[in-house]
Structure formats: C-alpha cells, structure tokens
C-alpha cells in the first residue's frame, strides 16, 4: 500500500477540530492574562503602574481639579506588570480579550482622583488619597509640611534650618 494514504484513518479518527467561533466560546486556560481592571476604591493614584507599563497604556495626568489615571486598552499588551507592581493590589488581570469596538472612547477607562492644592503656591501636586496614606505612615512628620508641594516644602525646610542657626 502507498504509505501516505495512512493519513486518512488519522483524519477520520480526529474529525473536525475547528471551533465554531464566535458561537462556541474559545478556550483560554486559567493562566491567561487579558485586559486589566482598576479598582477605584483601592487605587490611590500613586502612578507606579504608569511608570512600569512598557507600552505606555496607562497614564496619570492632572486635568483641572482632578487626577485621572487613564487606561487605554488599545495599547495594552496584557503583560500584567502593572498588577505585579501596584502597592495597593488595586489592579486585577481579567480574562477579557475580545475588546474590539466601533467607538474609540470605549477603549479608554478613567479612574478619577481628588487632588490636594499646595497651601503656599496653589499648585495641584498629589491625590488626596495618597497624601492621607503618607500621613498615616509618617505620623511623626509635621502635617504642615505635608500640605506643601515638593518645591515649597524644600524652601520651607531650608528656611527653617537657616532660622535655627
């Protein structure tokens, strides 16, 4: 017998392997990493995720009186580095990957944060949640200094030093 005909019984045994996608759900394993989900109640707006994100899908900007952590799923590569690095464990990796949309606005998800105003210069420099957190951690640290932006704080501390002398 011609040997290559032996493929026929294999084909008959295996049958059809193609899934009737999208009518039958594609199988992803439990390990699969898809789009991320940010929990607004846990997020403090520290921006650690925006600094590690390789494709820059996450950004943190202060617009008006609010800080916006923006997740653009169109750039996301599903690496999950943000979830690994988040100090608040506010980022969850989901199994979602069918994310196409006719509206580009669907691809943006914002988490909004209230921001603190520097009591001296009036600039907006940090989210109130993050400031609260720092306050708790540094209980011995002067509350007055914490309500200053980094630049004013430096000036304040330096002038105090000079005054002490």
């Amino acid at each position: 017998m011609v040997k290559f005909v032996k493929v026929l019984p294999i084909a008959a045994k295996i049958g059809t392997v193609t899934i009737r996608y999208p009518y039958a759900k594609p199988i992803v394993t439990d390990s699969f990493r898809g789009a991320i989900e940010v929990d607004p109640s846990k997020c403090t707006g520290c921006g650690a995720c925006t600094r590690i994100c390789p494709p820059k899908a996450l950004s943190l900007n202060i617009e008006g009186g609010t800080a916006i952590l923006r997740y653009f799923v169109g750039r996301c590569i599903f690496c999950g580095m943000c979830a690994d690095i988040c100090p608040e464990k506010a980022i969850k990796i989901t199994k979602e990957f069918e994310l196409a949309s006719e509206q580009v606005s669907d691809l943006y998800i914002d988490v909004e944060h209230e921001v603190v105003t520097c009591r001296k210069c009036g600039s907006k420099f940090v989210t109130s949640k993050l400031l609260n957190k720092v306050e708790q951690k540094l209980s011995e640290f002067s509350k007055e200094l914490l309500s200053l932006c980094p630049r004013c704080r430096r000036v304040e501390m330096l002038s105090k030093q000079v005054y002490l002398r």
Partner: protein
Amino acid sequence: MESLSTDNEFENLYSYLKKISNRFVEEEDHLRIVVENEKLREVAEVLSKTEGVFLRTIAASDERSVNGFYKMYYVFGLDRIHRNIVVEVPLDAENPVIPSIADIVKAADWYEREAHDLIGIKFSGRILHRFVLPDDWPENVYPLRKDYTVQDLVKLYRPEIIAKAREVEAEAAIIIPIGPYHPALHEPEYFELYVRGEKVVGARYVGFMVHRGIEKLAESMKYDQVPFLAERICGICGYVHSTSYCQAVEKALKIHVPERAEYIRSIVLEIERIHSHLLWLGVALHLLGYDTGFMHVWRIREQVMILAEMLTGSRKTYGLNIVGGVRRDIDRDKVNKCVKVLDSIAKEFKEFVEIAMSVPQVKSRLRGTGLLPRNEAASLSLVGPTVRGSGIPRDVRRDYPYAAYKYIDFKPVVRTECDNMARTEVRVEEVFQSIELVKNFLDRLPGGGIAVDSWEPEPYRFGIGAVEAPRGEVIHVIVTGRYSPYRWRVRAPTYQNLPAVPIMLRDVDLADAPITIASIDPCFSCTDRALIINIEKSDVRDVPLVALSLKGSRLLR
C-alpha cells in the same frame, strides 16, 4: 579538568591577542581586547584563519559622552572552548574611520553597512551605499548617535508618503502600501532571481523594509520594560529575544539568576522551539503543495500553544522574563499536565511525520535541492538548523551554555547532506529532542525562588547574551546605562543566514526557489512576491512565491 586542556588549544592565539592589545579584560565568558585602528585587519586575519572561530556579531556604539570615542565591538566565538573574543576598537570622535574587514570575514558585510547607516562610521576600503535607512531619510542624520532622542527623530523624519497623501488630500485616509515592500507582512524580504530558462543563475536580496529602530527606542525605556519590547522583535520566537536581553544585562551586572528561574527559562525556550519548528514544517509542506500535511502539523501544534499559555499566561508573547529571573512559577499540577501533553504530541507527531516524509512530492522536492556546501556554511558564519544541515554541529546550547543547559549533556542534531531535506530533518528531529529536554528539565526542576530580590544597575558595563533560537543563534550585546540600556545591539539568526540564500539558489529549478528560501526559516509570508528576470528574453514577471512553488509540484504528478 577538561576546560584546561581545551584552553591550551588556543593558547597561542590568546597570548598573541594579549600582546597586540593595548589593554585586555578577562571575564568568565569572554576575553575583551582593546586594539588600535591600524591593527584591526591583522587581528581579523589571524582570527579568520584560526579553525573553529566564527564572527557572532558586531556592535557599533556612540560613547563620545562617556569616554570620547565611537566604539566598534567585534564578537568572535570559539565554539569548542565556550568563549568569546571581543575586539574593541575606539574611533576618533570627529572622524570615525575604521578599516573594513568584510573581505577577510565575509559575515561582517551587513554589520558594516548597518554601522555606516545608523551611527555614521566610515569604512576605509569599501564604498557603502544606504542599506538600512529609507531613501528619503535626511542626509547626515545618524539615528543611533546620542545627539538624537526618539522624539527628535520623529520630528526630523517625515516619510515622503505622508506628504504625498496630503497632496491628494488624503490626510485622514489610511495609507495601504501594496507590493514587495508591504510592511504588513511579518518579514517582508525581497529577492530578485536571475534565471536562464527554468534555472536560477543568481539572486539578489533587498532588505530592511521594516527597520523599526527598536534599539534606539530601548535607550529611552527602563531596564524592566525592555524585555517586553525585545519579545516583539519576532512574532514566532520572541521569547529568545527577551531571554537574550536579560542574560546580557545579568552578565554585564553579574546578577546571579536563581537556578529554578534558569530551568523555567529553558523549559519555555524549548516549548517555543517545538511550536516554531512545527509551524515551519506546516508552511514548508504547504509550499510543496501538501496542504493535508500543513493542516495536520498545525493541529498538533495547537496543543503546544495552549501549553505555552498555561505555563506563561499568553500563547505567544509570553511576558515571562524580567532581569534577574522570571515572573511566573510552574507548580506540580502544571508539571504533570505538561508531561501528559508532550507525550501525546510526541506520539502524534511521530506517526504523522513518517507519513508526510513518504509523500512523493515532499521527498523528491526536498532531496538534493538548495545545496549549501559545508565550507560555504562555515565561511559565512551561519547559525542554527541551516548550518547543522551542512554538517557543522554549531549550537549555542552546547557551545555557550546558558540557563539550565549547563546542567545537562547535550548533543546537537546534525545532517551532512547539505540540502533542503537535511535542514528539514534537523528540525524534525529537534522537535523530538526538545520534547525530551523539556521532560528532563521538568523532572529535575529545583526548588527555591524564581527571581533575585533586587539588583542595582551600574553604568558602562559590557555584557553578551546568546540563545539558540529555533532559527539559530540570537545574540544581544549590551552596554549598560544608569536607568536604561546605554547601547543595546540585537542580532537575529536570519540576519546571519540570509546571505547564504543566494548560494543555495545557484542552479536550482525556479520552482524550487521558494522552498529553498524557506529552508532557512526566515518567517516568510506566503504572499511575499518574487521578481523573475529572464536573462534570455529580458522580461520581468512578478509572481506570488507560493504559486511558483505549487507549479513545481504539479509537474511531478
């Protein structure tokens, strides 16, 4: 100790190199010598005449802000003693000229042309035309020089095509380029085949259509972001790039990766090889007109893809590596599942491959076509299954052991027939070998952590990271910076192997040209086109490669 006796073999070479150099540094994996410009050709001559030495890569680097020089790093490999010789040549900041060595070391050709385009190094002894950069790139702008940031370059270079689109008021429209330079193909290579009747008499290659400048991009990214960029160099074997990058950084900064992480890297590398070889075999069978085989190989391959996803979290771009280790562990449950799947693949593939190789058109079109003689393979410093199909047992896993390969005995798969069949057989056997390797690694998987706790970057350290990719050696050279790589040089196997294709194409039937080109596994898209120039009739035809190849199979029937 074995290493001592083999070291003696190159004792003369070592003492010569140390004597001729101004300064030398001896590291665990390499000897780095600093040589003056005028002595480079002599050194290259001596190295190229030494049996068992091959050129692995060349990196040009702009280090004017660090030490006042441009630098060229020539990395030569001594396979037998698992060492590298790095020849470092500092070049004048005002006038960076270096003698060309392309006439002595053939493989240096492309590297010199690339350094000329991207860093503006001048090579005395040869005239170079633009090779990597597009025709409309501005004069005297060398993108890899530190004078430019990525943002500067984006402002400096506006592709002509954008202006064209504006002219026809198509500003808002999307540009769809069509033709051999189609950037949507995963690796648009373009060959001109010169034919006499139905025989190919010569070939010319035009490349670098999709140069993306990622080496430059990485200089603006943080150390732990680059693995994800590196992984996107190749859509089929990306994990080898992220591993090479991490290894180069780890070597440069002397970071010791936990053993368990080394094993996990090796396991995933071998799984990637299995999927890649199966993918190649499927495409090769398709080119030969045996589509039944194509479907079956890819059906078997699908199990590997699911396995990879289970182990890493993604089917393809695994995202597993970071400098200092890996991000995901493999638990007992996954080990058991893995072994089960691998056993089933081995059984199915064995049964199938015997049938596929008995198909008349597969056999007759692979055997005796695309000859690559052993001496030519050696002189071009070729890598991977391409060189192993020509009788040279070069394999990074054995020659420069990394990750968990240092803990096992390993014998490269070699064939001596030098034809398309030989290269196919190497890959087929490597599938079985990789399955055994993964099982072996899973069996010995040691305990402990999977990444170092922390590490500190130190600027201006030099490191080499190499991995045996499915297509051959991938090698990354790194000069570290404070927060990002200072210079990151990537060399993929196809870069080294493509110059061999014109040799393989000599005197093949036109219909066998596509499978011959595909035999080095250059991630070819089946819709890539060849231009046929008939010398006798002097007419020019443009045909899809796959149509050309199928014609050959029909003739056999």
